[in-house]
Every structure is written in structure tokens, then in C-alpha cells.
């Protein structure tokens, strides 16, 4: 039965690990370093499997050091990870091209693990778990075969023996996983991607802030990522408004949130209570969302509530957070408005056309007037679109009279402005509309593309009433702009959801913000250091280059052990009065010697030397000493 060498099995497994590392990290490193390391890696495969050639180890070390220094020069404290990953990737590929001993394999594994953990900072998705599992299984097998290799480098086994070793030792990670999972639950965990202490390179999602420029929402809507997940019962789609901010002040093309304290102490909402647990992804804002109308948010620190049923914190929500929301499902907020001037304020440069248009909807019954405006926008000649949005100085004019196409921002703004012209207090609410209910985990997935603006109108004796003038989105629009959530992606998201709900330890955040503060403290002297670093590292490069050059020169001058032995031999022979000609072979020379005593004693040496010389075996230091001793025994007994 054919036998396979363990060394080859080990090589194949190691290269698989290297390959996986490339697959996993290629998105996070620059194309330059990726291609350099990939070329070296492919070269290494060629060397190990197709045609062997030997490369000077010192030269490789020299190249590796140059790369590290080059990358070191680019390091800033705000982004340590990318240069570190790049240098590790280059180092890994250089390690592959070396002639590999046991310790070289161990170094390969160590570098792989470092790259792997480093790359998790960029990606902490479900795919990570798949990569991780493959990595662990491969690593396990490789170390097992490395153990074999370390015991006997020439060992070879039958195919079925190798498969059995693979199959049986896979049990080790299989058992390790449950144990690790147990420990994982037992130890504190972070909402950060692992080891994300060095300043995140994650781009926080865009989101609602206290100033909403027209066009902001469409930017948000183009993002298909998830903004929050809501664990709650299934709710009628008509009520799926996730309240975020109310916007009161409009100037030109931008809405702003202004703090208006109500004098009415009896603001109330009535209706069915719905409780939700919301898992909010980090975004560049500080508002907390809840099903319209949220009355109470708990389980999160430093929450402030406004009279208009919006909630915010004083810090930017750059971490995953979890909070509980209690909402009352109603369209109406009962309030006696005392400061209506804010809600009637119009932009200074409001055009005559808008004023004239508004007057068309005047009605004694204010509610009827509001309905007319809503109907005009929603069911009239205006079309929903995310393309070619008006961007001129007077975007609302452009929308109402020229393009007649726009998204919720234009519809809601138009309605609010028209109503204000008519003397009806109104404001715009920003949040999210709708969401996909995942039956697998009983939760709503709300994505950035669900971002929405709607209008709240104040009617005397009733209060604030919600109106949504935006026409329902036509289905083509859906297909174009929104990635459909397939069943499979819902399934994957369920796992993400459980990761959020079960695994992230949200209380750890305080510790981490403390850590971040400490880090801030370290960050300050950054500029000075980086300037010095550049000078320092270039001088390091130059010094190292010189040292290595010197080293190589000395090394090349230094003769090999073979040459040195022959030299000693020649000198010895000359002393004994026999001279070996330059092109004379050792055997030939031996035949020539007449003195039997010398002949015998040299014979031993010649046989031993030829054993090395003709078999292309390298003479190392120990052999050299033996040869020297053999030669010193050659003498004429007088």
C-alpha cells in the first residue's frame, strides 16, 4: 500500500491555513501588501510542491525586517490594526517560503492566529463563525501532524491511517467547543467586536441627528444594514412607526430639533400598551427609537425624555445597546398647546407660490383642511422617488412645482409648511417605518432603508395627530433600492439576534468607556511621536541595511567547512613532504602515496570525506571537528 509522507500532509494543511487567512483578511489590508504577500505565498507553494530551490534564510529575515520597519512607519495610534495586519500577512508569506522546521511551523500558526484575531476587529458577522470553525479544525489537525513531524521527520503513513488520524483527532475541537462556549458565558463579554480597544475603524452608520437636511434621509435609506432589532409581538403594519426625533424648526432646506418645554402638565396618550426590547446598532446619533408613542424607556443609563415623547442620551451611541421600551399605540398625543409660535414659524424666504398653493386648502374645519393637504400630496400627481431629488436653494418649491418627485422628506416637509401657512401648528417626526418580522426569533428587523419622516398636526381640543403624506412606495422602487431579505438571510440574522440578546454583556460597557478614557489620555502626544518615529525608523532601516550588508560580505568571504578541511589536509600533506596537485582527486592522490603508514591513516579520512562530498551532504560544525581530529592523527611514527 502506498505511503504518504507526514511532511507533505503537514505542508498541505499549513498552506490551507494560509489560504484561509488570505480569504479572511483580504478585505482589510491594502491591495499593495495583499499582492506582495500573495505572490510570495504562491511562490512558496511552487517551491514546496513543484520545484524545490533553497533560499537563504538570512536574506529572508532581512526582507522581513525591512517590511516590518516600512509598515511601522505608517502606524498611527488611531490605526494600529491595519498596518499590523499587513505586516503580519507579509511575515506569514515569508515564513512559508522558508525551509520549514518544527519551530517555523509553530511561528506560522502563531502569526495566523494573530492575523485572525486582528481581522475580527473589522468583521464580526456570522461569516466570522464559519471561518473561525474552519480555522480551528485546520489548526488542530496541523498541530497534530506537526507533533508527528517533530518526532520523526521522515515518517510516512498509509492513506487510511492518515484519514483515521484526521477523523479521530477532530474530536478534540468538537469537545473543546462546548467547553469554550461554557467559559464564554462564564466570563464577561463585550459588545465590541473582540479586541476593538484600539479605536474602531468601523464606520458608524449614518443616522438622524438634531439637524436633518433634506436629502439626509435618502442617504440613510440607501443603506441596507440593520439599525435595530425589536423583540416584541407582531403588530399591524399600519402602526409600525418607530419614533425617533421631532423636528420643529425649518430653514431653507434643513429641519432642526429645538427644545420646547410644554406648559401643559397633563400631556397624555391612551391606547394599548406594547412592550419592546430594542437592540440598537451603533449609529452617529443619540436618539433612542421606540414604537410610536413611546412613554417610557428603561434599562439604559442617562436617558432623557422630552415632552414630545422622544428620548435621547447625551453621548453618541457608538456601541451596541439594549433597552426596554413601553409604548402606547395611538395616533394622538393629547396636549393643550400653549406655545404654538414655534410650530407655525415659516422660513423667511418662503415663496409666494407656496403661500398661494396653501390657501387652496383652507377650510373652517381645520381637520378637513389637513386631510385635503394629505390627500393632495399622497394621492395627487406627486410620485415617490429616491432619484433626482431636488437640491436647489428652494428644494420644496422645486419639488411642489417642478419635479414633483421625491421621497418622504419632501412630502412631509411640504405638508408641514402648507399647514403652517394655514395657521395649523405642525411638526415633522423622524424615525423608521415598517420592518420585517422574523418568525424564527419573534422580532422585527428594522433597516436603515426603512428611515422615514412623517407629520404631526396639532388640532385644538384633540392634540397632536399623526399624518403620513408620503405615497406608498411602488414595488419597482422596492426591488431597485432594497435588498430583499431572503429566508436564508433571515435565518442567519436570527443567529446574530441571539448573539446580541444572549451573548453580549451590555453592562461591560461602563468598563470599556473607562478604558477608552484612559486611551484618550494616551492619544494626546501622538503627533510628536509620529514625527519622531519617521526619522527614527528611517535611521533604523539604514543601520540595519548596513549591518546586513556587512554580514553578507563577511559571510561570503568566510569559507565553507569543506574548503577549510581540504585546506588543513593540503597543509598537512605538504608538511609530510607530499604535495597534492590542484586538480588531483583524493583517490588518485592516495594511490600515489608510497609510505604505507601514511596511506593507511589517510585512507580513513578520504573514505569519510567522500561519504559527504559525493553524496552532497553538508558538513556541519560537529563533522568539521571530527574531520579535524582525524587529520591530526595522521603522522609518521619515527
Amino acid at each position, binding site marked *: 500500500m502506498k505511503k504518504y509522507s507526514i511532511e507533505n500532509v503537514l505542508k498541505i494543511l499549513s498552506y490551507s491555513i494560509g489560504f484561509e487567512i488570505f480569504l479572511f483578511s483580504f478585505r482589510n489590508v491594502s491591495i499593495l501588501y495583499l499582492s506582495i504577500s500573495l505572490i510570495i505565498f504562491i511562490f512558496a507553494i511552487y517551491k514546496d510542491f513543484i520545484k524545490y530551490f533553497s533560499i537563504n534564510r538570512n536574506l529572508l529575515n532581512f526582507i522581513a525586517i525591512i517590511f516590518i520597519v516600512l509598515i511601522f512607519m505608517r502606524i498611527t495610534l488611531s490605526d494600529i490594526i491595519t498596518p499590523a495586519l499587513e505586516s503580519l500577512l507579509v511575515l506569514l508569506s515569508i515564513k512559508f517560503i522558508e525551509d520549514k522546521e518544527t519551530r517555523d511551523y509553530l511561528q506560522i500558526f502563531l502569526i495566523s492566529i494573530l492575523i485572525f484575531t486582528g481581522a475580527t476587529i473589522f468583521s464580526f458577522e456570522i461569516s466570522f463563525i464559519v471561518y473561525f470553525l474552519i480555522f480551528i479544525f485546520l489548526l488542530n489537525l496541523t498541530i497534530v501532524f506537526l507533533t508527528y513531524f517533530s518526532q520523526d521527520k521522515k515518517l510516512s503513513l498509509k492513506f487510511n491511517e492518515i484519514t483515521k488520524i484526521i477523523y479521530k483527532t477532530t474530536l478534540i475541537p468538537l469537545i473543546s467547543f462546548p*467547553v469554550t462556549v461554557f467559559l464564554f458565558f462564564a466570563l464577561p463579554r463585550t459588545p465590541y467586536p473582540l479586541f476593538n480597544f484600539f479605536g474602531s475603524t468601523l464606520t458608524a452608520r449614518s443616522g438622524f441627528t438634531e439637524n436633518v437636511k433634506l436629502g439626509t434621509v435618502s442617504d440613510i435609506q440607501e443603506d441596507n444594514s440593520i439599525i435595530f432589532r425589536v423583540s416584541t409581538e407582531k403588530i399591524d403594519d399600519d402602526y409600525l412607526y418607530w419614533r425617533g426625533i421631532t423636528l420643529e424648526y425649518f430653514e431653507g432646506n434643513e429641519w432642526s430639533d429645538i427644545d420646547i418645554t410644554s406648559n401643559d402638565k397633563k400631556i397624555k396618550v391612551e391606547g394599548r400598551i406594547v412592550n419592546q426590547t430594542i437592540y440598537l446598532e451603533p449609529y452617529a446619533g443619540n436618539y433612542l427609537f421606540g414604537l410610536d408613542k413611546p412613554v417610557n424607556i428603561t434599562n439604559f443609563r442617562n436617558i432623557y425624555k422630552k415632552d414630545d415623547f422622544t428620548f435621547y442620551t447625551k453621548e453618541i451611541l457608538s456601541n451596541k445597546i439594549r433597552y426596554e421600551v413601553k409604548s402606547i399605540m395611538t395616533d394622538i398625543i393629547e396636549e393643550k398647546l400653549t406655545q404654538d409660535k414655534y410650530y407655525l414659524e415659516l422660513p423667511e424666504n418662503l415663496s409666494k407660490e407656496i403661500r398661494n398653493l396653501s390657501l387652496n386648502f383652507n377650510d373652517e374645519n381645520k381637520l378637513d383642511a389637513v386631510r385635503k393637504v394629505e390627500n393632495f400630496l399622497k394621492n395627487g400627481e406627486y410620485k415617490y422617488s429616491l432619484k433626482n431629488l431636488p437640491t436647489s436653494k428652494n428644494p420644496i418649491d422645486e419639488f411642489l412645482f417642478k419635479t414633483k418627485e421625491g421621497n418622504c422628506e419632501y412630502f412631509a416637509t411640504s405638508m408641514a409648511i402648507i399647514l403652517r401657512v394655514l395657521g395649523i401648528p405642525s411638526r415633522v417626526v423622524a424615525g423608521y417605518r415598517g420592518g420585517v418580522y422574523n418568525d424564527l426569533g419573534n422580532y422585527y428587523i428594522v433597516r436603515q432603508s426603512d428611515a422615514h419622516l412623517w407629520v404631526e398636526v396639532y388640532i385644538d381640543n384633540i392634540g397632536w395627530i399623526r399624518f403620513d403624506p408620503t405615497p406608498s412606495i411602488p414595488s419597482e422602487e422596492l426591488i431597485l433600492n432594497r435588498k430583499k431579505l431572503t429566508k436564508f438571510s433571515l435565518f442567519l440574522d436570527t443567529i446574530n439576534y441571539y448573539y446580541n440578546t444572549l451573548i453580549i454583556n451590555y453592562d461591560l460597557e461602563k468598563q470599556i468607556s473607562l478604558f477608552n478614557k484612559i486611551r484618550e489620555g494616551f492619544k494626546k502626544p501622538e503627533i510628536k511621536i509620529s514625527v519622531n518615529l519617521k526619522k527614527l525608523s528611517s535611521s533604523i532601516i539604514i543601520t540595519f541595511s548596513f549591518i546586513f550588508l556587512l554580514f553578507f560580505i563577511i559571510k561570503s568571504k568566510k569559507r565553507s567547512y569543506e574548503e577549510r578541511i581540504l585546506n588543513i589536509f593540503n597543509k598537512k600533506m605538504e608538511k609530510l613532504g607530499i604535495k597534492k596537485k590542484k586538480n588531483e582527486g583524493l583517490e588518485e592522490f592516495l594511490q600515489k602515496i608510497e609510505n604505507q603508514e601514511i596511506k593507511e591513516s589517510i585512507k580513513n579520512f578520504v573514505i569519510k570525506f567522500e561519504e559527504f562530498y559525493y553524496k552532497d551532504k553538508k558538513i556541519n560544525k560537529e563533522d568539521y571537528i571530527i574531520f579535524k581530529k582525524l587529520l591530526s592523527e595522521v603522522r609518521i611514527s619515527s
Partner: protein
Amino acid sequence: MAISGFFGRFNITRIKCNVEFPNEIYANNDFPISINLNNEKPSYPVFLIKIKIYNKLILFPFFEKEDKKLVNINIPKRGKYVLDKIEISSPFPFNFFVRYYVFKKNIEFIVFPEPKRGFMEYLFDRKSKKGEFEINTKKGYEGEMISIKDYILGTPLKYIDWKSTAKTGILKIKELSSFIDRPIIIDFDSIFIKNLEEKISLVTFFILDSIKRNIPVGLKINKKIFKPEMSLIHKINLLTELALYEKV
């Protein structure tokens, strides 16, 4: 780490180790010991076991139920030996730890003296310089044909050489040599060779060589007398006696 430790431990437990020695072991000569490992774990194979015996390491890379390996051992001096322990170790699975375990054994074996050629040369040194045995001419019925002679009454029919009978017209028979030579008894104590070990080695070779040549050999040693014989047991007995010989 803990789990790898557990696997390493599990790997070397429930293994039985049997050692077999050859019948004849001679000092300063390599002899093979067969090491037999049996895995008593019902469904898990054994990985990467190393057995240490007389400072020799034998690697068992992988086996399921049993594996057998031979290892050449060399013991320089004759005498009685006891194999009291066999060390079994394994770096499996990750080479983080090397697990080991010692089998307590009590295997006695005797190492016969190192045979050295030259006893005959020594003995015949003064008589003839040939240093070779004379051709064995003892008559018998099993060996090769020595000569042809006239028929003697009573000789069995199968010894009649029909070819020469036909040639000469007189009944001729074959005369064969005998396989069995004259028996020899070595009087160990009266042989004068100064170096005892040298003497024992020379005698050992002589005994082995004689038996190979079908010469029954006996030995007179330590006031014991072994009558000349050629059986295997006899040979073992003689060599054992020499192996354990100590000058009184």
C-alpha cells in the same frame, strides 16, 4: 490546553505491552526484541506512542488494535539480565506535554558469551599450522560417498553401486561417510588461556561451530560434566553454563 491534556492521557492508557526475546542472545551482537502493543480501548486508536527500552526509542505512529515492532538491542556482556521496566510516552496531541507511563516488568533473560573464532587455531597451534579441520573420514551410512569397495556379506541392497558392478562384473558397494563425528568433551578448567572472557568466547564459538558441523560436544566445567550431545536444549544448557560462569 486542558482537553489536549486529557486526550494525551487517554491516548496512553489501557495499552498492554508485551516483549519477546529471541532464544539465543549473544553478548556484543545485535539481537531483535519484538515489542507488541495492544490497545484495549474499544473504539479509539492509539497515536504516536514511543517505547523506551534499553535506551532505544521505538515509534509507533498509529495503530488501532495492535502493532508489533522489532528493535535491535546490543548488550556488551554475558550474564543474567532482568528487564524491569519499559517506558511508554507520547507527545500526542499537540506536543504541549509529553505524557509517560512506566510498565513494571520482570523478564529474565540470559545473554550468552560473545562467540569468537580461533579456538581451533589455539588448540592446533603447536601441532599443525593449518588451522583447519581434517576431512572427516569416519565411515557411516548417511554422509557422502568416500569410496567403492567389494561387497561384504550382509550389506543392504541399497548400498550396492550398480554402475561400478556393471563395469567390473564384480559386486561393488558404496562406502559412505558418517554424519556423526567423534564426540568431543571440552575440559573447560584445564584449558589454559589467561583471559577468562577470551577463553569463554573461544569455547562458545567452538561449541556452536561443532554442533553446526554435527560433532557432539560435551563440557566439563565447575566439576559438572555435560555429556556430548547435539540437541538444542543441550546447546542452550552449555551456553547458559558459560554465560553464568564465574571463577570460583
